[in-house]
């Protein structure tokens, strides 16, 4: 099958591309960032999804399936540009897909869609609305992109749409929201809070995405693997030191003394958990993770040399 991956230079997207290629698919990449050591056989187009040149790729290469991984997820990235990429890019991508005969679009979204707040339940199911956007407006564009993609399920009945809400990933790329948070030797926690975090090893996450491409499952799915783990244990088992700081003080310290710079709303994400129920996806694709929570943390510790 010919698969176009939008955002193919991203850390996880590269692994998806390699995996799909190794499984015998023809893979085309699209990204405004370069992929310098892209392997032979993967054709990469260096352009923005919203540009005319991107539409030409759809027109000339006629992919059967499009995997949309061209969203900006980092909590640290902000501003209008990010919103334009996430919402505008998703809109362009679906338009091109519909206009050029694509059969299947996989939108790779994040489980942060559900939001973190004191009164949101553990184990979100796919039918739940997002919680706590009010306290974290920076998340609104990702929620909007997710909702726009999910809309395609009824808006474009001729197109098979898959919306994945993927948990955090850890792995060789050392990139992603959780990985950035674990970058330093000392990791700040909010004193008196210790939320559960759910994560997948990158190879498992890539396999989950590849499975949804191959099985062309329609609908909205949470994608998760091992049991969630409290943040403090994640920090300790990856060889870092947890530094619990009272919240008012932490707000003032963010962005200084080597602590990550986070928007104020991001603090909710290190106070309260976002835990999703992945039963529906496992049932639809018979996905199961290969790397459990303990092994994932151990491997990450070795990968980051601690």
């Amino acid at each position, binding site marked *: 099958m010919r698969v176009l991956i939008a955002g193919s230079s991203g850390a996880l997207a590269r692994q998806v591309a390699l995996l799909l290629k190794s499984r015998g698919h023809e893979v085309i990449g699209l990204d405004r960032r370069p992929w310098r050591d892209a392997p032979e056989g993967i054709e990469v187009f260096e352009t923005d999804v919203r540009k005319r040149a991107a539409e030409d790729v759809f027109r000339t290469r006629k992919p059967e399936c499009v995997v949309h991984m061209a969203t900006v997820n980092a909590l640290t990235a902000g501003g209008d540009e990010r919103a334009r990429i996430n919402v505008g890019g998703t809109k362009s991508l679906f338009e091109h897909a519909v206009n050029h005969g694509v059969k299947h679009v996989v939108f790779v979204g994040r489980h942060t869609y559900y939001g973190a707040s*004191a*009164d949101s*339940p*553990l184990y979100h199911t796919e039918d739940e609305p997002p919680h706590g956007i009010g306290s974290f407006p920076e998340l609104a564009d990702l929620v909007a992109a997710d909702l726009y993609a999910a809309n395609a399920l009824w808006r474009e009945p001729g197109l098979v749409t898959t919306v994945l809400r993927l948990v955090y990933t850890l792995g060789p790329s050392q990139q992603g929201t959780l990985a950035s948070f674990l970058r330093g030797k000392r990791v700040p926690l909010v004193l*008196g*809070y210790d939320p559960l975090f759910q994560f997948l090893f990158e190879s498992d996450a890539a396999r989950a995405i590849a499975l949804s491409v191959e099985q062309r499952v329609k609908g909205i799915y949470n994608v998760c693997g091992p*049991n969630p783990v409290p943040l403090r244990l994640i920090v300790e088992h990856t060889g870092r030191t947890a530094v619990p700081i009272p*919240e008012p003080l932490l707000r003032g310290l963010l962005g200084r003394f080597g602590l990550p710079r986070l928007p104020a709303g991001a603090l909710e994400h290190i106070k309260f958990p976002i835990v999703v129920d992945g039963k529906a996806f496992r049932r639809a694709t018979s996905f199961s993770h290969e790397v459990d929570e303990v092994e994932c943390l151990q491997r990450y510790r070795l990968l980051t040399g601690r």
Partner: protein
Amino acid sequence: MASDDSVRERVNRLELPFNALGIDPYGISKKHLVVGFSLLGWFYRHYFRVRAVGAANVPRRGRAMLVGNHSGGYAIDGAMVLASMMLELEPPRLAQGMAEKFINQLPVGSLWSSRTGQFTGLPEHAERLLEDDRLLMVFPEGARGTAKLYKERYSLVDFGTGFMRLALKTKTPIVPLGFVGGADAVPTVTNSYALGKLVGVPYVPVTPYGVALPLPAPCEVHYGEALRFSGTGDEEDQVIRGYVEQVKHRIAELVEAARASRRARLRPGAGA
């Protein structure tokens, strides 16, 4: 007291799916359970000298709902019921309360309630835990129940009906319980809602001696036989109300029984 070996042994015998890190799928942590229940166990055995009657009525395995009265002050009753399930049952069980929303908002409160399985009282939590065959602890009087004054200690305020619909929907047996002694531990003369607002809790109980630290009053809890109702949970309000009244009536009987037996214990020979 920091970690009691008999408590550790009981935590190890809990039939919950802990992983290699000692964490269950809800984030309940063995380590935190040992510390938490060592503390509660001390209060249970030595401070409130709780006597539990009929704990064997609680099913050994499978979903069940403990439904009881609040006996005043704050949730000493809930804490002691948790301790009695851990210390008196064979095998021990972890009861999971449906906590007030403010607890998860507070530092420390959030961490300890999350690690010991005392989650915010959301219908989603309750249903998921029961579907997972856990032991749920419910006080249908809610915060109005803990806010009872000393003079109202043996009365029951209005019961919510959510627990009954859920029990019907998930086909869960209800184990009624009557708890007495909480109001003697925290004899509330009035509740300060203004002070509560200031510190982020619903209210602060005020006792004749000012602060609401608990006195070492003996407590007693009586568990009744499991009640089973059949239905779907979609019944008319009137039907549900009728079932709830049955549970409430049974709890009132258990409160009276606990009260009589506690009186006999405090004044032996005076006649119950």
